[in-house]
């Protein structure tokens, strides 16, 4: 078993959908980061609204975290299944808290702590709705933390509901807290010392934030798990920040609306999961032909078809890369963390406008819903530059051709209605003016412009993969996108005894050049290279071979819809060592 730091606790809150697992998890996460701790959370939910078995897993430390562990220190069991399913994950000194009356089941073993959530809620809060607050209080108590932070949170959260609600919830919290402090004799958790307030952010929110901070003014989509969070986030801020969010009638409409808005002069984005994106594929090709900038967030989930709607997988890489009929350049970013999601979304918005092409932000359910802790987000790393030719600048052009041939292949991106020049584009092959043509010479020149001229310029914008760990590694783990977190922690762990490093790709296409960092040389020098992917076929490994001819020695693939956790991953890596 892996050894975490002294301050490395995992809490798992399990129960049925609708029992408020995420309420407890949400409060705890915020509270811990406010107290200056590092938190990492991930969710495991069934595709149902009530019932079933679900959990919210949270890790808490004094050091930055990027993955979940398999060992649980506190298991909060809101139902019986949570106990039977996860009892064996409990650490040596770990505890299981539950309400024996509520789940009609009593456990006498020492690691069980029966906290009468409902009873205490009724008695001290006046309503059983507050059982979750009681539970939250107990956990704080078990951890030996101060209750004040929780009380402050309750105050701010329930202020709108009036003093009475605040007081009732405070009483419930205190009751839970007091009960745990008094009754959990076996609790030996060391309270982490408080630090500076930190932020906790999930992948989906990070993309929304990144989009808004890039000047995105229009977001159209059709709800689809796990991408819906992006739309929710932006919609929640739409009024305050002047953004139009449109729930389209279907995904085909969504991408076409986004193209209309983008043509109209507004930065625009859409998002979906694999099945919804499948419906956007024709529109993607339209974006390419009309050279209309568009950013697409593609949050993967296990497929084919509906698959496992609330679970995770990285199986749309090659689909996204080759989607759309015909040949055209595109950008594919797969952030490994919410932080990367913010910066890469920003980069995507700038590049799609600069080169008038589509870009993908490829995430998955795991990254979309996982929360990471940061000190802050450095806004000075965000850039905004308007590449369009607007108003006077457009009017002053002697003549204007939307698809003019230029040395760079990039034509001036004018805005309809802002000058007397006409902005004309066409899904058919077209002339420089944007009108229909079948001329073979113009066709050839247009393909050269869109594809061969732009491609090297776009490629030059792509950053090399990230090397983490040993700088002259004997073993190289390779990953892309959301596996970054667990891989990074695996390196932290394995690096103690091995010359090992992680090569992580987040800017995936155009495939990074080797001029700034010859990662192929690095791989060639290593004794063993292992490509780790959350899919069955090893799509990144195929892409690597197609792009560079390089073949990995080993592969680790997980395709049961679940993300890699630290211990499992380390175990699998150890299994490949020769």
């Amino acid at each position: 078993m892996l050894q975490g730091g002294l301050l490395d606790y995992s809490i798992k809150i399990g129960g049925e959908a609708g029992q408020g697992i995420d309420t407890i998890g949400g409060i705890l996460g915020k509270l811990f980061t406010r107290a200056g701790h590092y938190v990492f959370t991930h969710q495991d939910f069934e595709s149902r609204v009530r019932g079933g078995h679900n959990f919210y897993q949270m890790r808490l430390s004094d050091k930055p975290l990027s993955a979940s562990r398999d060992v649980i220190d506190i298991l909060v069991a809101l139902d019986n299944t949570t106990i039977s399913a996860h009892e064996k994950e409990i650490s040596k000194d770990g505890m299981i808290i539950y309400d024996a009356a509520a789940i009609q089941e009593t456990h006498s073993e020492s690691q069980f702590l029966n906290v009468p959530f409902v009873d205490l809620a009724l008695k001290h809060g006046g309503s059983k709705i507050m059982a979750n607050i009681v539970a939250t209080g107990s956990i704080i108590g078990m951890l030996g933390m101060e209750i004040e932070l929780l009380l402050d949170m309750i105050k701010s959260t329930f202020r709108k509901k009036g003093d009475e609600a605040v007081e009732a919830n405070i009483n419930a919290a205190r009751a839970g807290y007091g009960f745990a402090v008094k009754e959990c004799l076996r609790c030996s958790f060391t309270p982490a010392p408080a630090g500076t307030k930190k932020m906790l952010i999930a992948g989906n929110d990070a993309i929304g934030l990144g989009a808004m901070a890039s000047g995105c003014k229009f977001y159209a989509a059709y709800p689809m798990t796990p991408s819906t969070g992006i739309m929710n986030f932006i919609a929640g801020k739409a009024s305050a920040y002047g953004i139009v969010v449109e729930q389209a009638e279907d995904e085909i409409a969504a991408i076409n609306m986004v193209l209309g808005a983008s043509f109209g002069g507004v930065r625009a984005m859409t998002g979906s999961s694999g099945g919804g994106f499948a419906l956007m594929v024709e529109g993607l090709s339209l974006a390419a032909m009309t050279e209309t900038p568009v950013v697409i967030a593609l949050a993967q989930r296990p497929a084919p078809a509906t698959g496992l709607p609330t679970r995770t997988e990285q199986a749309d890489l090659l689909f996204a890369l080759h989607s759309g009929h015909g040949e055209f350049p595109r950008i594919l970013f797969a952030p490994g963390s919410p932080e990367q999601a913010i910066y890469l979304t920003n980069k995507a918005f700038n590049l799609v406008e600069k080169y008038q092409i589509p870009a993908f932000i490829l995430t998955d359910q795991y990254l979309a819903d996982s929360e990471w802790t940061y000190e802050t987000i450095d806004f000075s790393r965000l850039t905004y530059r308007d590449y369009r030719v607007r108003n006077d600048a457009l009017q002053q052009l002697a003549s204007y051709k939307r698809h003019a041939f230029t040395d760079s292949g990039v034509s001036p991106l004018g805005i309809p209605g802002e000058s007397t020049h006409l902005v004309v584009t066409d899904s058919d092959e077209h002339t420089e003016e944007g009108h229909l043509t079948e001329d073979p010479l113009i066709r050839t020149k247009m393909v050269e412009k869109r594809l061969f001229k732009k491609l090297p310029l776009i490629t030059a914008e792509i950053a090399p993969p990230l090397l983490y760990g040993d700088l002259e590694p004997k073993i190289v783990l390779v990953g892309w996108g959301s596996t970054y977190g667990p891989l990074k922690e695996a390196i932290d762990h394995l690096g103690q005894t091995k010359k090992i490093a992680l090569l992580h790709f987040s800017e995936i296409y155009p495939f990074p050049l080797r001029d700034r960092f010859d990662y192929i040389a690095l791989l060639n020098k290593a004794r063993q290279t292992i490509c780790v992917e959350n899919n069955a076929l090893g799509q990144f490994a195929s892409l690597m071979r197609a792009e560079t001819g390089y073949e990995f020695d080993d592969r680790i693939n997980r395709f049961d819809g679940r993300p890699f956790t630290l211990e499992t991953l380390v175990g699998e890596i150890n299994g490949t060592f020769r």
Partner: protein
Amino acid sequence: MAHLDDFEGLTPAWCPGCGNFAIKKAFKEAMVELGLEPHQITIVSGIGQSGKFPHYVRCNTFNGLHGRTLPVATGLRLANHGMPVLAFAGDGDCYGEGGNHLIHAMRRNISVKLFVHDNQIYGLTKGQASPTTAEGTVMKIQPFGVQSEPLNPLALAVALDCSFVARGFAGDGDHLKGLIKEAMDHRGFSLLDILQPCVTFNKVNTYDWYKTRCYHIEPDYNPENRVQAFEKALEFGDRIPIGILYRNHRHTYEDGIPMIKETPLVKQPFDLSAMKGILEEFY
């Protein structure tokens, strides 16, 4: 002010005698009479003979995909509701491939002006049945005749409470011009279905066929009565009413969006430094 010639674009690749020429003429006249200039408007079109329309007049143009005119127009209009956005579509384009968008654009009442070149056939792809092709028509793909009941676009529109529902006829140019102007002037979504003879592939619904059937809706007809409008919309046989069938005064979609109340989205500046506040909720 613009002249007719200002709206003249490339030489049309339509068949000689095609009803589209008359639509083009009426359109140009309507624009001039409305005092609009080519750069002030944008036409979004799909794929089909109608899809080529904006190339044959002069204006800002987004000639997109078959069936996807309305979503593009919707996005464009939301980005810039200071600019008239017109959608030109075919009957296959808009009632077939794009049917879902039509329904929802009407529900939204987004101020897009939709002009459907309804030739009751797929023209560009050389003569297949469209959703408005008459039942029983024998086609290559339906050698025993089209088995579906033709879609009645106006009845559909009334059922969806579309805020402007009209029918024109390419063979009645002045009347058509008037309808185009009314559609443009209307606040909200406008559907103008234009009967457009396809002289090459539709040998049933010819100029003559339409001419003997079309009549101007009575001057005392009240287009604000929805049930009556529905009844009128069902008339499509020996007599075909042309004119405004239905109109209401629903609020437009743009009206309902507070973010663009004051200024079109495209005119709203962006200030990166003003965005830092978003971080707050994560602490």
